[in-house]
């Protein structure tokens, strides 16, 4: 046998051993046996020194090539073994990712429709330059009625079935405000015109049936300026309703009506289509009464220290609960205050659905 034949036999043996290795440890043993200090290939390398130059010229390159091939085979086998080991591990590592997670608060928490709609109102009116004014729920007769031009004992007061607090020793009897209009009075008394405010809040009337609750929410708006007029009132209401109901246009019908605190006074109907479970605003052949409004009565201006020939203004009011029900299809007013978690989860809003005009109000 020639040296080359010997090398070929050695290579075949080593490669067979590499191929036969079943794991990384066995493969390491093969590597040491071949390429380690006393490995079969290393031993051969050591013999090169004892060869004559002619022989070394032949065997040297062959042996180097052999060592490279063995190294390559070892690397390839090592990778294959690692892959196989990982595959085997991964096979054992399955997770049933269909297992359900707990829902986070962002998914289960809810904002009440009244709060959400109030935020919608604020988004719309703040863009028109309105601030938000609030006042106490417990009011005086003076601010709830007298300053608003309700004559004492006038039948218009009968329209407001009022909750009263106990009469005091001095004869004063406080009440729960029947509308948010006292906030308008407080605003006019505290703030120099021009004024643009909306007054959302809780209001109370002695009433409890299918369509009335003893507590409900109102929003009123007030504009006082040198030339605030009915045309502007129409525009404000049209813009508001269009934006609120998220429709391209609305058609309003202004009907003369009566409120003690406005003159002229009007009720406003909006064109709609009444369907079984919803009302579509901005289309159809029906009219839906949606709010009351008018020019602030000169007596009210005077009562707040404003000269009705120098300042004028308009005001409007509507039920927040009612427009919330209309927009979001809630059928029964009483449900709004029943704190039924199922109802709240159904009709409530996700915590991060913050109304904004940029986002199109509702998401």
């Amino acid at each position, binding site marked *: 046998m020639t040296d080359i034949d010997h090398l070929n036999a050695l290579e075949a043996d080593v490669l067979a051993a590499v191929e036969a290795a079943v794991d990384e440890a066995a493969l390491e043993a093969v590597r040491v046996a071949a390429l380690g200090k006393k490995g079969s290939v290393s031993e051969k390398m050591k013999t090169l020194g004892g060869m004559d130059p002619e022989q070394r010229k032949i065997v040297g390159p062959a042996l180097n090539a052999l060592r490279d091939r063995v190294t390559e085979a070892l690397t390839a086998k090592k990778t294959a073994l690692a892959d196989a080991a990982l595959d085997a591990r991964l096979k054992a590592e399955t997770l049933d990712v269909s297992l359900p997670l707990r829902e986070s608060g962002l998914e289960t928490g809810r904002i009440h429709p009244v709060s959400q709609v109030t935020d919608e109102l604020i988004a719309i009116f703040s863009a028109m330059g309105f601030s938000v004014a609030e006042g106490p729920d*417990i009011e005086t007769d003076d601010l709830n009625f007298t300053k608003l031009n309700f004559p004492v004992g006038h039948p218009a007061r009968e329209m407001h079935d009022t909750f009263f607090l106990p009469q005091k020793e001095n004869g004063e009897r406080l009440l729960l405000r029947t509308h948010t209009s006292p906030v308008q009075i407080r605003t006019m008394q505290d703030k120099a015109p021009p004024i643009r405010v909306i007054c959302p809040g809780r209001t109370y009337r002695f009433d*409890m049936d299918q369509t009335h609750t003893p507590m409900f929410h109102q929003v009123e708006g007030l504009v006082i300026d040198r030339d605030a007029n009915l045309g502007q009132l129409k525009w404000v209401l049209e813009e508001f309703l269009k934006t609120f109901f998220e429709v391209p246009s609305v058609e309003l019908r*202004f009907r003369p009506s009566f409120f003690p605190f406005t*003159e002229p006074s009007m009720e406003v109907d909006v064109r709609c289509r009444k369907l079984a479970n919803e009302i579509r605003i901005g289309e159809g052949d029906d009219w839906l009464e949606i709010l009351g409004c008018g020019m602030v009565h000169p007596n009210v201006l005077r009562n707040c220290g404003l000269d009705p020939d120098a300042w004028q203004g308009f005001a409007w009011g509507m039920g927040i609960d009612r427009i919330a029900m209309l927009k979001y299809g809630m059928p029964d007013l009483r449900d709004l205050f029943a704190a039924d978690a199922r109802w709240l989860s159904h009709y409530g809003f996700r915590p991060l659905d913050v109304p904004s005009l940029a986002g199109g109000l509702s998401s």
Partner: protein
Amino acid sequence: MKFSLSWLKEHLGGDADLVAVTETLTRVGLEVEHVDDKAGELSAFVVGHILEANRHPNADKLQVCMVDVGRGAPLQVVCGAPNARAGLKVVFAAPGTVIPASGVKLGASEIRGVPSAGMLCSSRELGLGDEHDGIMELPEGSPVGRPFAPFVGLDDPVIEIAVTPNRPDCLGVHGVARDLHAAEIGELRDPLTAVIRGEFPCPVNVRFDFGDTEPLSPFFALRMVRGVKNGQSPEWLRRRLKSIGSKPINALVDVTNYLAFDRARPLHVFDAAKVRGDLVVRRGRAGETLAALDGKTYALDETMCVIADDSGVLSIAGVIGGAATGCDETTTDVLIESALWDPLAIARTGRALNVNTDARHRFERGVDPEFALPGLNVATQFILDFCGGAPSEVATAGEVPARDLIIDFPISEVTRLTGLAVTPAEVKTPLSMLGFWVTGVGDRLKVSVPSWRPDVEGKADLVEEVIRIVGLDRVEAKPLPAMTSAAGARLGIVQRRARNARRTLAARGLVEAVTWSFVSKAQAEAFGGGAAELALANPISAELSDMRPSLLPALIAAAQRNADRASSDVALFEVGQTFLSDRPEDQRMAAAGVRRGTAKARGAGRHWGEATLPVDAFDAKGDALAVLAALGLAAGAVQIAQGSAPSWFHPGRSAALQLGPKLILGAFGELHPRTLQALGVSGPLVGFELTLDALPQPRAKPTRAKPPFEGSALQPLNRDFAFIVGREVPAAELIRAALATDRKLVTEVTLFDRYEGPGVPEGKVSLAIAVTLQPREKTLTDAEIEAIAEKIVAHVTKATGATLRG
């Protein structure tokens, strides 16, 4: 206010039809609430003529009729009515007609093998009555093929309008017609009645006797008609009364009712034979009673105005008459009263006695004072016409008050308030047609207000009169000028806090509720409320009697209601007002939440991945601190005052949240078992409540810039320590002590283990903390680290009595 179209037409000339009338009414502010137009609704039902009626070949109770319906050949109709017979005029409905009573659309059909081309209708099927034993029988002269309704007196639609309290003049048909006249859909007809001269002095006199008290009537007129025969009033009048749901009684009474509806002039009639002596108009007296026409007896007092004779009270002025002096068919001499009453007194009396009559309704809103005498005259004429008799002269007391109101009215006022440019004619014409007396030229008018318009007081009222007639639809929408600046928040600080609190709590999985502002007395008392000044004088129910001192009782009750509906794991919150007293400054904006069952912050109910635990004080603490953090108060800044929570919390498992000893923000914890028991609810239940107004006002800052970020290039290092400390020592104190060791170097202390049990002495706990050290200028040497560690131990030991666990 109801009237029929034909009734209106007596006051309104021209040919305006029902649609024009109703549309105009609503447009001018007399909102049409309902129209009962039987003729219109039933116009598809025509007069048919039964030519033949034969037994149905297959059914005993059915007949096969040949009916002439006015077009084409007679139709074959199967009918089950026993009264169907040849020669009868009937109501025929062709296939395709909707039957009002059932709402069913009629189809061509075959009944027991015989084709039937329509239906003969009963009055019940037409929604006209209960009669269903047979089909409707029409008058013989009814023309075949024409709608049947006009031939049975159904051609007079009844209109119901809503009259606002400022328009007492429109509580009579005449006043309604005047508004329509001004809207130019017909001429106002004013049927004048010649003044009737009395034939003899009124035998009964009337005087006021209010003594020193405020008079409750300015004017009272009385007239006798002697020798009347009181029977039924004429058919036209009876029909009109019936059309608006008023029951005809007898001619004398019907006349007074009719004038109330026709001219908004309530009157009263007394049977003169039952009156003793003269009439006195005076205040009632405590102890007096009246048996009234409605069959009830009313107790009177000195706030009420009465009409009395020598025998006592006959009538409650302007509200309701007495039964004893009422007119019936035996009445021969009648006294007619036409008076003016103090509207406030009428309203007060009506409310106190709970009597709602058409007279009260009109008097409390204000009748036309100048029509008191003409109204009496019209009534007299009707009575003479219907009942005969001889009229007396009119006896009066007091005077008709004059209200000569003339308003200076610049035409420009219309434009100023509405934005609509109008011509002088557009202002003058409607006002004149409404009965205002308009003089003046150019822009400045003088407008005299008619006696029937007590609501008109000034310029703004006249603007309304003009604009409602000229048409609100002519006012064009004009953009509100943009605000000069968009700067500045639109919401106040507490409003912003409320909004933030809501979104924060919802993000933690709580569901927002809106509960009543009033709670029961027991609930109020259980949460520190129940003061007399906050108890409603007229609560709608005992459950809703007191202004709430806290949001918690209603939330707790709601949690229980949900639990009773099998939703036992609920997390509810509310952000809303609470009341400490009746003063405005004691109304607070609170945020509160409750968690029940397993509704913990990380999720409710059982889960495969973790143990199911009941809610505990830490869930409530997390909610409260999350709100405070959202409002700018870091958890470290808030003191947790164990044992200081209000009495409705569990004393050992709750705390007040405060900033210093005086500034209490709220509390959290488990609810006190006794509180839950008092409210009749079961736990586990935890909650918190914060007063959003209590937070300190944020300091005004010149800039929104945040402090510069300091990210050290040096590695922070962690050291763990375990301490044995008394069980009564709050862990927060230990953490605080560790942090305070070196505020520069110690940047974070985390408590990662708490243990009590074997290996730890009785009454002690082991608390393990991880301390993060952040070197600032250079890495710490081992010696430096050792030194700081020793310092930490010493500091903690000194502050808490803790020892390092060996």
